């Protein structure tokens, strides 16, 4: 080739990666080729560390249309429709530039859904920061929230929910994950392939600039002090252009002219031209000059790896180029015809008439995996699994409850979700704060079904016990979906960890994946995609973040009007606790907030009853036997009960002596975080039916108390004296407004 070449030792690839390249190529690389290979070999693009582990996750099921590998998971939801969903991390960009980092994260995940051919209708978000009271946390939280809202609101996609966790390990390296879901007609599925030589390659949208050069490699390193200068220009999202791209893309798909579709995310044009070629068993050839650039002096390699936002890549029959052009023109969107699909199996890039890149597509898309070693981390030995706190005296209980309800990880997230449009699209029937998962109706698509979507994570459990923590996160996500009455049908995950080259970090990664995989098998739910974010390491304090898998579970409810929220409906209704309580307070709110320790046994998912518990929940809700429902998670029984009371402005009167548990201890009964438990309310005549439903599977459903008219939280333990007696209003004020007070420095309603 006519291009100057780059010395082998200057190429930023590992020895194995180089060997893989030169075995095939047997020649020197041009500079653009080296840049393309470097970015495609980065952790972020190649999944080189995680690839050997991820196959543990079950990916098959009768509903699965596309599993891992495509841009997003696709599942069949009947009525000719498919649900498309995915989540992704944007941790490093958000840690340094929280507004733009979070905003472009949202932009990226929307593209993933769109490029399967679906209309994106819902967004979710998951944040992990240091302590809430810390000024840096507030700065991050404020701008991240503004970024997620700024993008999502402007592009007109409703927020369906999310989760937030505060823990010192995220002080510097916060974790920002965002998810999106969309709906499409099954027959409109668009794949990222270029199958037919002669088809044209069209690039739609924004111009290509220096922003985000090396973004993928940036996400594949620790954040350091140099990180700032490390980055090319920051990426700025343009939700207005994205909105036009969404409408134009959907219109193009409807008109039948789209043969293949790929979004431009990590690795930009490089990724598009190689993945479409490799997936289609073809080749691609483009002219570099055709790409519209924003800065005149951009080098070819920069253009090829730039991750500029708001671009889409289309494969179109030559005779349809003008047709698709007319659609783009309506929205005044610029586009270019970059080149052609070939049968060479290669990605060729021409510059001034000469090839500057000529690489087999598979060299780019299938780099070798890295062989990471895993080593048991000794911090686990220092933890005391059997640890139990001294049992608090009865008179201390009210204050313990007050503290827990006002703690960082329990207080209301309303300050955050009020900044998101939760209603746009007229889909959301259960909105943030009203239930365990967001519920979206599908009326617009001609179906009376509903989609339930939820995010869940629990870094505290995963840190103390990666295996059981990982399994627990999936169980908790599926429980949230079941709690609104939806059958969990599939999930995707985002695995946020430290540096995979550290064997002790990698061990926790392996264990978490094993835990999720075993739980998925027990629950019989497929994983249809995911994302891995490594190198989340706080250089200042030299600690990795706590292992933080975040799970996006999707559920389906046949009749959306039956979806259940978490609000008590009327006084005198019975409160039923589903499931059994065990002494599992390791990593719990109670242990951390009240006893300031990380000891104790982490909840273990009971694989034998898990699936039945969820199925029975779905069944009683769909048979309209219950009037409210909520699953037990962070903070255990007390927090769940109180959340239901606060949602309704009604009180409760509970006898915890009645609950089946492996201990008599009051504190453990109140605050244990054992999985697979739910609270439901029922009217008298349905009590027997609900108990019977669970009894078939030997799952206890226990009447523990009633909803009361007066706004008091009353808990007794086997006799007439209350061990807890708290005014609802007082607890609610603290819980509801503490985040706002922290963030605004004052109360405003």
């Amino acid at each position, binding site marked *: 080739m006519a291009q100057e070449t780059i010395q082998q030792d200057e190429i930023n690839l590992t020895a194995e990666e180089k060997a893989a390249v030169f075995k095939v190529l047997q020649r020197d690389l041009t500079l653009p080729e080296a840049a393309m290979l470097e970015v495609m070999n980065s952790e972020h693009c190649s999944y080189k560390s995680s690839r050997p582990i991820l196959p543990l996750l079950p990916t098959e099921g009768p509903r699965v249309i596309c599993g891992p590998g495509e841009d997003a998971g696709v599942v069949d939801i009947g009525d000719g429709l498919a649900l498309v969903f995915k989540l992704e991390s944007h941790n490093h960009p958000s840690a*340094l530039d929280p*507004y733009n980092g979070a905003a472009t994260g949202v932009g990226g995940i929307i593209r993933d859904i769109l490029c399967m051919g679906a209309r994106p209708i819902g967004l979710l978000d998951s944040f992990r920061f240091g302590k809430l009271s810390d000024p840096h946390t507030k700065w991050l939280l404020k*701008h991240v929230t503004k970024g997620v809202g700024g993008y999502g609101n402007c592009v007109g996609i409703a927020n369906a929910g999310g989760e937030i966790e505060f823990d010192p390990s995220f002080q510097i390296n916060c974790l920002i994950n965002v998810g999106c879901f969309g709906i499409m007609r099954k027959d409109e599925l668009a794949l990222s392939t270029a199958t037919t030589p002669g088809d044209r390659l069209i690039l739609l949208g924004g111009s290509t600039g220096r922003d985000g050069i090396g973004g993928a490699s940036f996400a594949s390193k620790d954040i350091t002090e140099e990180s700032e200068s490390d980055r090319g220009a*920051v990426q700025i999202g*343009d939700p*207005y252009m994205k909105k036009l791209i969404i409408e134009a893309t959907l219109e193009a798909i409807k008109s039948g002219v789209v043969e293949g579709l790929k979004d431009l995310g990590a690795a930009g044009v490089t990724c598009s031209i190689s993945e479409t070629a490799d997936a289609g068993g073809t080749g691609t050839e483009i002219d570099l000059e055709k790409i519209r650039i924003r800065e005149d002096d951009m080098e070819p390699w920069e253009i090829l790896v730039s991750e500029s936002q708001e671009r889409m890549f289309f494969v179109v029959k030559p005779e349809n180029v003008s047709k698709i052009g007319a659609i783009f023109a309506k929205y005044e969107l610029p586009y270019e015809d970059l080149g052609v699909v070939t049968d060479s199996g290669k990605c060729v890039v021409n510059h001034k008439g000469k090839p500057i890149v000529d690489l087999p597509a598979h060299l780019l898309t299938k780099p070798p995996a890295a062989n990471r070693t895993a080593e048991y981390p000794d911090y686990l030995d220092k933890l005391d699994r059997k640890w139990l706190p001294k049992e608090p005296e009865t008179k201390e209980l009210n204050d313990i409850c007050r503290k827990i309800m006002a703690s960082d990880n329990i207080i209301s997230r309303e300050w955050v979700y009020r900044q998101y449009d939760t209603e746009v699209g007229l889909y959301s029937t259960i909105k943030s704060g009203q239930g365990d998962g967001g519920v979206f109706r599908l009326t617009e698509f001609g179906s009376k079904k509903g989609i339930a979507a939820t995010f869940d994570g629990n870094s505290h459990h995963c840190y103390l016990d990666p295996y059981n923590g990982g399994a627990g996160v999936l169980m908790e996500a599926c429980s949230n979906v079941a709690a609104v009455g939806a059958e969990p049908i599939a999930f995707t995950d985002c695995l946020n960890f430290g540096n995979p080259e550290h064997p002790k970090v990698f061990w926790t990664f392996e264990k978490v994946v094993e835990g999720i995989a075993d739980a998925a098998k027990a629950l019989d739910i497929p994983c249809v995609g995911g994302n891995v974010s490594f190198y989340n390491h706080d250089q200042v304090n030299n600690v990795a973040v706590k292992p933080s898998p975040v799970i996006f579970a999707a559920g389906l409810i046949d009749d959306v009007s039956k979806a259940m929220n978490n609000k008590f409906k009327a006084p005198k209704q019975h409160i039923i606790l589903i499931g059994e309580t065990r002494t599992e307070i390791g990593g719990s709110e109670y242990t951390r907030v009240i006893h300031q320790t990380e000891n104790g046994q982490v909840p273990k998912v009971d694989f034998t009853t898990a699936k039945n518990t969820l199925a029975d929940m779905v069944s009683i809700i769909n048979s309209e036997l219950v009037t409210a429902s909520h699953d037990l998670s962070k903070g255990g029984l007390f927090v769940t009960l109180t959340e239901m009371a606060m949602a309704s402005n009604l009180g409760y009167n509970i006898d915890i002596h009645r609950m089946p548990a492996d201990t008599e201890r009051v504190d453990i009964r109140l605050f244990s975080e054992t999985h697979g438990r739910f609270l439901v309310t029922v009217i008298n005549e349905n009590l027997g039916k609900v108990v019977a439903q669970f009894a078939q599977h030997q799952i206890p459903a226990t009447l523990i108390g009633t909803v009361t008219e007066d706004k008091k939280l009353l808990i007794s333990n086997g006799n007439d004296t209350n061990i807890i007696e708290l005014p609802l209003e007082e607890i609610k004020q603290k819980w509801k407004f503490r985040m706002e007070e922290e963030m605004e420095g004052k109360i405003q309603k």
Partner: protein
Amino acid sequence: MPKFSVEIIIEGKKNARDPEGETIMRDLMIKHGYDMVESVRSGKILKVNLEAKDENAAEEICLKMVNELRIYNPVAHMCVIKLVK
């Protein structure tokens, strides 16, 4: 102590995109006949009145303040401080 007026102008970095400026130019200005406009950058301005020993001190206080209080994020923005005379 004498009083001074300082303008703090915060805008995106040179090479960063400015979708707001681009839209204002394309969809408002150019479309309505102002095609002599070649570029628009949007930013934010804070006009601060403060007491200080002298002009230099006023500027210095503002400089320290914008950095310390993160009035702008150096990763994404540039910030210019101008004493208004």
